[in-house]
């Protein structure tokens, strides 16, 4: 092998002079990034690029090249680059990468981000920073490792990215995202945004691998075969300098490291135990004199300095070196790191980092101390998922804890797990805490935990146990002098009865809660009892009580209480088809809960939003929202039930397959709850799907038990709804005389179905028109058949002739612009012709290119002409 060339990273060839020459097969991706930036510079509106690809495919190399190219641009319009990287920590430090960027920039941003700010405050501070100077490329690397708070900021920033002149680029490994990975939520949300685009990096072709292999004495085909064209593997294999191609990435990395000699290897090991990189002073503490070999390691391309931190150029290399460290040496290194970081040379100690090294060093006392601290800090920042993981870590090392300390940790863990919809973990932790509190004869805490257990058990649909625990809490706390815990427990029991539509009991316990709350005069108690009473009497002034509870909760920092009231209000408004009101609660509630990491409540609100869109006839949006919930849900029953019902109804109304499977699953989740509010809507949906199939027996089976329950609970509206489906299926069902309530407003689709209940031709025809308009194939067929049976003439047999008035979702204005564009006119001319500003035309053209998925104006006009979107005469 000859070494005239030094290998850089991931397929980059660097000439001996150190000047980068060419990044193989990345011209397209670099071009796309440049184009996105160009669009930002032109329009002053920001964009987001999501850069996906497997580990080692060269995402970092691409972004660095993009940055280097930008930095060579010294003109006035040159963009500055901000760069934050997420670290592969088991429990990442909340806001880690954003803190690092802010520290580097200093100023107001650093002040806000460094002060335990919540994600929405951080996002606002970043937006202000991005607006203050122009323009910026903001890179966030490896967001698959990002903590929840960082992801929240990314999401919030992306949502308003068009108000800042910045190109936000987030890179991630797209092959490592399990089903419930928190990044999926962000990707899903951004998928529908006009301001975001995806870029995927693929592996190298055999030709590119051969080009990289050319200066070396290796068989290019074999190299391609072994590495599969993964650029990192290719470069490592070549740099290893062995006669044979190493079999694995690990072998390649280790043999490359070995060539640097023993002291350098010691330095590499010191860096390897710090997944987020190590400061120079820390490396001196860890590796002593071996630090002198840093230049060699940098020159070889294994390590890299970013700001003041030394890190591996690639995580795959770090892993390989870390795994090869002997166990005793590894423990010794972590112990040294722990000692050094407890008194850092700069700034305050970081508990998350300390907890990491303490765990690896097997230092139980230190884990306990730092993990608990890190957990509290994460929870304060709304990173409840990380908080739960830190508390769990502390508990694993909790052998020397006192019983009271242990119970306290379990309670904290339970709360964080509950807020992120991990009910199973939350329940298990709290059950242990109850037992410990009992052991300690701490009746107050035991009772309070039982009350919380009742609240959490309800989420996965364990309603009977939930009620039992809520009763136990009241019984236990009543043995003590009445205090705030008892008042809360009364309210919690009332909430359990309210959820089960047992209004009398709910109101009685709610009144108890209110009386005690008023006596004690505590704000949290007022918030809770207003919410409880509001939920008990939704049709009787309950909405305003809940709104007041939200106001009070927001002004006193009771974040979860406010979110819970939003959920109750939104659910009630959606069910009553109060669309405008529902939209207000949903928007505010979603902002409130996502800014504070309250995932559980966010999931409910997303599910309700999907249902609301279904009722407004926005079937595609409804299906998207419901599918998102089904991807994200973890343990709570209600969001799943609502989403399954929504998606099942979309399919049933369109006549699409898979409808029964979804609705059956919804029923399976709803049935064990025994609660009418869960069972009623699923029963109605299953009846509707059966009726559309002409399966009248199915309508009977679907409605039987829910109808009996609705009669028992005296819920007039649910009785009316279910009886209507049975009558449509020809099943004689008497309506109880008390069931004369005004039904809740119907949505247009339901109105059309109800119109078709009679035998008169005019309403049937109106129903037919409406059903055809919304594309309700099965119902259209049923109504058309009825009309023909009644002897009506001119009822269409086949599907209606479909006009293509809105192809590709183009607006009529955009079609006008497209026609002129296809006629070869420039934007200025188009603006003149249509009496628009040129900027507006720019905007329309951008939207047209996106919708037609065309790269250039030429492509767009070719597509438009080919598909007949515009007349040939322009």
């Amino acid at each position, binding site marked *: 092998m000859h070494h005239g060339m030094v290998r850089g990273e991931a397929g980059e060839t660097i000439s001996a002079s150190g000047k980068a020459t060419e990044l193989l097969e990345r011209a397209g991706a670099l071009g796309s990034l440049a184009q996105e930036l160009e669009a930002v510079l032109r329009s002053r509106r920001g964009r987001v690029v999501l850069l996906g690809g497997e580990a080692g495919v060269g995402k970092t190399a691409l972004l660095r090249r993009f940055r280097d190219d930008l930095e060579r641009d010294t003109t006035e319009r040159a963009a500055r680059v901000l760069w934050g990287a997420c670290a592969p920590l088991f429990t990442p430090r909340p806001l880690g990468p954003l803190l690092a960027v802010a520290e580097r920039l200093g100023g107001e941003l650093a002040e806000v981000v460094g002060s335990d700010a919540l994600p929405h405050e951080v996002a606002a501070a970043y937006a202000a920073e991005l607006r203050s100077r122009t323009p910026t490329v903001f890179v966030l690397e490896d967001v698959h490792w990002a903590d929840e708070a960082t992801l929240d900021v990314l999401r919030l920033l992306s949502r308003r990215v068009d108000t800042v002149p910045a190109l936000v680029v987030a890179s991630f490994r797209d092959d490592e995202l399990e089903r419930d990975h928190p990044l999926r939520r962000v990707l899903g949300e951004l998928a529908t945004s006009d301001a975001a685009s995806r870029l995927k990096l693929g592996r190298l072709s055999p030709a590119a691998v051969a080009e990289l292999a050319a200066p070396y004495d290796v068989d290019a085909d074999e190299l391609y075969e072994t590495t599969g064209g993964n650029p990192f593997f290719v470069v490592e294999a070549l740099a290893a300098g062995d006669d044979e191609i190493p079999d694995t990435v690990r072998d390649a990395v280790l043999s490359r490291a070995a060539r640097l000699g023993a002291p350098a290897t010691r330095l590499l090991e010191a860096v390897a135990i710090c997944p987020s990189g190590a400061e120079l002073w820390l490396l001196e503490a860890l590796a002593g004199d071996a630090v002198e070999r840093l230049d060699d390691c940098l020159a070889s391309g294994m390590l890299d300095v970013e700001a003041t931190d030394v890190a591996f150029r690639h995580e795959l290399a770090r892993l390989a070196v870390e795994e090869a460290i002997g166990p005793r040496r590894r423990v010794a290194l972590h112990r040294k790191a722990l000692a050094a970081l407890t008194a850092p040379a700069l700034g305050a100690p970081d508990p998350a980092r300390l907890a990491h090294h303490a765990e690896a060093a097997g230092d139980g006392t230190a884990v306990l101390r730092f993990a608990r601290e890190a957990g509290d800090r994460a929870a304060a920042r709304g990173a409840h998922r990380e908080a739960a993981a830190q508390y769990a870590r502390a508990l694993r090392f909790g052998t020397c804890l006192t019983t009271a300390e242990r119970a306290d940790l379990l309670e904290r863990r339970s709360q964080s797990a509950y807020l992120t919809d991990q009910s199973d973990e939350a329940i298990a932790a709290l059950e242990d805490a109850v037992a410990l509190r009992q052991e300690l004869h701490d009746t107050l805490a035991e009772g309070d935990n039982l009350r919380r257990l009742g609240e959490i058990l309800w989420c996965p649909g364990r309603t009977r146990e939930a009620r039992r625990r809520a009763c136990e809490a009241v019984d236990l706390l009543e043995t003590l002098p009445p205090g705030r815990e008892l008042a809360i427990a009364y309210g919690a029991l009332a909430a359990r009865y309210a959820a089960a539509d047992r209004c009398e009991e709910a109101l009685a316990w709610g009144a108890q809660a209110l009386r005690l709350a008023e006596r004690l005069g505590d704000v949290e108690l007022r918030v809770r009892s207003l919410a409880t009473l509001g939920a008990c009497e939704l049709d009787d002034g309950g909405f305003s009580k809940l709104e007041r509870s939200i106001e009070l909760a927001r002004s006193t920092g009771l974040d979860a209480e406010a979110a819970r009231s939003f959920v109750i209000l939104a659910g009630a408004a959606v069910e009553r088809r109060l669309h405008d009101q529902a939209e207000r609660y949903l928007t505010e509630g979603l902002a409130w809960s996502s800014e504070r990491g309250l995932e559980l409540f966010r999931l409910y609100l997303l599910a309700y939003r999907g249902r609301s869109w279904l009722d407004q006839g926005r079937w*595609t949006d409804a299906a998207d929202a419901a*599918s998102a919930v089904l991807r994200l849900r973890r343990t709570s029953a209600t969001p799943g039930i609502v989403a399954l019902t929504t*998606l099942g109804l979309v399919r049933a109304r*369109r*006549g699409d*397959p*898979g409808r029964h499977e979804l609705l059956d699953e919804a029923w399976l989740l709803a049935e064990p709850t025994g609660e009418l509010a869960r069972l009623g809507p699923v029963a109605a949906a299953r009846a509707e799907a059966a009726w559309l199939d002409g399966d009248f027996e199915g309508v009977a089976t679907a409605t039987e038990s829910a109808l009996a329950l609705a009669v028992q609970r005296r819920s007039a509206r649910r009785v009316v709804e279910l009886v209507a489906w049975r009558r449509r299926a020809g099943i004689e069902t008497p309506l109880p005389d008390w069931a004369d309530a005004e039904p809740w407003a119907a949505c247009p689709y339901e109105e059309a179905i109800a119109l078709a209940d009679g035998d008169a031709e005019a309403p049937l025809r109106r129903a037919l028109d409406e059903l055809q308009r919304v594309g309700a194939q099965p119902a259209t067929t049923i109504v058309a058949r009825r009309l023909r049976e009644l002897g009506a003439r001119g009822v269409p047999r086949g599907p209606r002739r*479909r006009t293509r008035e809105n192809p590709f979702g183009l607006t009529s204005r955009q079609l006008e612009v497209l026609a002129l564009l296809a006629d070869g006119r420039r934007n200025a001319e188009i603006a003149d012709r249509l009496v628009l500003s040129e900027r507006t035309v720019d905007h329309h053209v951008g939207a047209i290119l996106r919708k037609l*998925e065309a790269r250039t104006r030429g492509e767009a006009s070719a597509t438009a002409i*080919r598909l007949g979107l515009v007349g040939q005469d322009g």
Partner: protein
Amino acid sequence: MPRYVVERTFPDGLQVPPGEAGVAFCREIAERNSTEEVTWVHSYVAEGGRKSFCIYDAPTPEAIRKTAERNGLPVDRITEVRVLDPYFYAGETRAA
């Protein structure tokens, strides 16, 4: 991935332009499909292009409807199907 038959009606008949334009027409549809992970396997056309039965691999019926919308194609009905191979049974019998 599930397989679906998508029935479509084209009141004026489906016209795939001849030559290069036809190639581009089909390629563009395939490209737009790929963003939703939808694959157009092939189609059977009947009644002089007024009716088509299209075989698709797709994650969900919603994905098929979305791409149909983007491609400006009508959808009458979507049915999930499985392959039944008559000669498979012949092979089984011989083996037994």
